[in-house]
């Protein structure tokens, strides 16, 4: 879902930068309040892991592939959607400047979609699903799927405003592809990773235990 430079005119690309910069600043404020001996290595491991997994494009049929975004997983593991904003900002910068994956002018839009929208929608969906007593993997799956899907719709709306995509055909194409990518690439991997962490290091996810979220 990395938007290349050519897909959004420069003036609009700047608007997305202006929107996203205060949120990047808030994610730094979160880091200043949270970074400790435990969360620093988690942030580093997630930065490397998200970068690497985004290189793994999974075929989803119809001649299309997709990869995990990872903001929801990062938000769940670090206990805040701001973690997703900070990590995706770092990952997207390195991808754009180092690997020509996503444009440089469109970084603001890409951070908005994949960091902010995907992370916040996914994290709070996860919390909501936990509150109605769904299991950890199911809540993680639901949050990750919806986070990816809604961010793809945001991306489509940006494409439409840019005059790059027509609204209805764009909505059908983006929605269809990302509904599937969300199941395989985002939902399933997030659910498996969260289950594995719940087994190996339940302390990391203790704030999401059934007792913690319903009280």
């Amino acid at each position, binding site marked *: 879902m990395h938007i290349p430079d050519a897909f959004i005119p420069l003036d609009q690309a700047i608007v997305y930068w202006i929107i996203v910069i205060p949120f990047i600043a808030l994610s730094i404020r979160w880091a200043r309040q949270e970074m*400790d001996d*435990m969360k620093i*290595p988690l942030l580093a491991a997630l930065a*490397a892991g998200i*970068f*690497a997994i985004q290189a793994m*494009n*999974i075929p989803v049929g119809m001649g299309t592939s997709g990869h995990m975004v990872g903001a929801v997983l990062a938000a769940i593991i670090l206990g805040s959607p701001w973690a997703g904003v900070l990590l995706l900002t770092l990952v997207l910068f390195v991808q754009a400047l180092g690997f020509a994956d996503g444009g440089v002018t469109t970084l603001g839009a890409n951070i908005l979609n994949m960091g902010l929208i995907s992370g916040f929608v996914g994290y709070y969906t996860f919390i909501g699903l936990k509150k109605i007593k769904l299991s950890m993997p199911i809540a993680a799956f639901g949050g990750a799927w919806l986070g990816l899907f809604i961010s793809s719709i945001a991306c489509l709306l940006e494409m439409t405003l840019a005059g790059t995509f027509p609204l209805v055909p764009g909505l059908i*194409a983006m929605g269809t592809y990302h509904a599937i990518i969300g199941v395989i690439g985002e939902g399933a991997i997030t659910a498996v990773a969260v289950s594995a962490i719940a087994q190996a290091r339940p302390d990391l996810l203790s704030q999401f235990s059934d007792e913690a979220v319903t009280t």
Partner: protein
Amino acid sequence: MTENKSNDLKTILLAGLAVAILLSVLAPFLASSNPDGLESAAEDVIDEHTFAEMEENEPIIGALMPDYAIAGFGKAGEVGAIFIGSIFMLGLGLGVGKLFEKKI
């Protein structure tokens, strides 16, 4: 830092490193080369001529290793590019974390 916490730090960093190495070795061979969701949607909804022009546009700033490859090194270059990127991200994450470490 207690011994326990220092062990934690190493274990978590090593886990991140292990995932990064595994994915950088596997991705060039297993990852699908099909276009991603956004590119596929673009192919569906943009007319061929305009799409071809957009594809030809060079990025505004040239990247060091475009498309996760090192020119002339084939699959080994792809493994290398993802590996170098992952290690860089591990260092960047650690650096950013340390920079913003909360003062007690």
